[in-house]
């Protein structure tokens, strides 16, 4: 009888220890799950108000008007534009109407100019029709006016 009593005591104690460990692990995992759901990914929202193309006779110029219509400040380094499916380029390579233009704050509208397009008359960048803007998981396209 004493043997089974001691055995029961040991196994019972182990069960209690495991139950306590399970509770602690459960709390830790709930916290981990909460941490995973609380990861804040960049969520910018921009509006490419217009993309205006002009041709001077020797070279083209594109003027982009971009508004930060979201709630996050956006680094212009992270904004990419492409014309008619050509290679995207960072907005930081453009000439901005304010200097230094590193960030676009919520509600702010910035005008950027890309000049010297098709200066060599090689049909590259010639009279683009569409501009595609992408920043992180947000993207949009507008027709060139």
């Amino acid at each position, binding site marked *: *009888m*004493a*043997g*089974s*009593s*001691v*055995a*029961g005591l*040991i*196994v019972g104690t*182990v*069960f209690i*220890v*495991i139950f306590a*460990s*399970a509770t602690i*692990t459960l709390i*830790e*995992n709930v916290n*981990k*799950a909460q*941490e*995973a*759901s609380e*990861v*804040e*990914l*960049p969520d910018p929202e921009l509006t490419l108000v217009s993309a205006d193309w002009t041709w001077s006779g020797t070279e083209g110029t594109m003027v982009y008007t971009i508004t930060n219509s979201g709630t996050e400040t956006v*680094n212009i*380094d*992270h904004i*990419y534009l*492409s014309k*008619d*499916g050509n*290679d*995207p380029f*960072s907005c930081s390579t453009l000439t901005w109407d304010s200097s230094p233009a590193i960030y676009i704050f919520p509600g702010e509208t910035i005008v950027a100019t890309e000049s010297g397009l098709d200066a060599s008359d090689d049909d590259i960048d010639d009279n683009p029709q*569409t501009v*595609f803007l*992408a*920043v*992180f*998981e947000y*993207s949009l*396209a507008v027709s060139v006016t």
Partner: protein
Amino acid sequence: MGDGPSEMIMLMTGLIVAGLVSAVLLSTWDTISDGLENQGELEVQDAKTRASLISDPSLIAWDNTADRAFIYVQNSGTISLNIDDTYVFLDGNPMTVTAVDAGGVTWSKGVAIKFQIDANTDLTFTDGTECFLTVGVSSLSTSPTGTYSLTEVVRLDI
């Protein structure tokens, strides 16, 4: 007194059995606990791992002769990615992926990388073909490794 040896045997037997049962239970629980902990860390790492296609999906230039295209992908997560672990499927076909002008394997947040994607077999598309492009990325950190894949419909420009 006559019950002494019998009681002692029962006690020892009980202790041995209890010890074995306890060892099995604790070992099993330890394994379960480790699995749950690793799963939690993996979920956090996966949540931080993101990438997005920044090439215009309506105009992805495809070269039928070289069976090649170039795409730009941006690290849109919150941790660095491993450039060398990027994989791409175009229309269900596995592609050989080569990062162009990438210095090293570290792919920082917000940075866009140009990838050359070459088909392993002859792939001929007609102009305007719409198909699925899948891009998979992995985190630079390997403890644990976060993964993410995106699938977008793209229109090929031949």
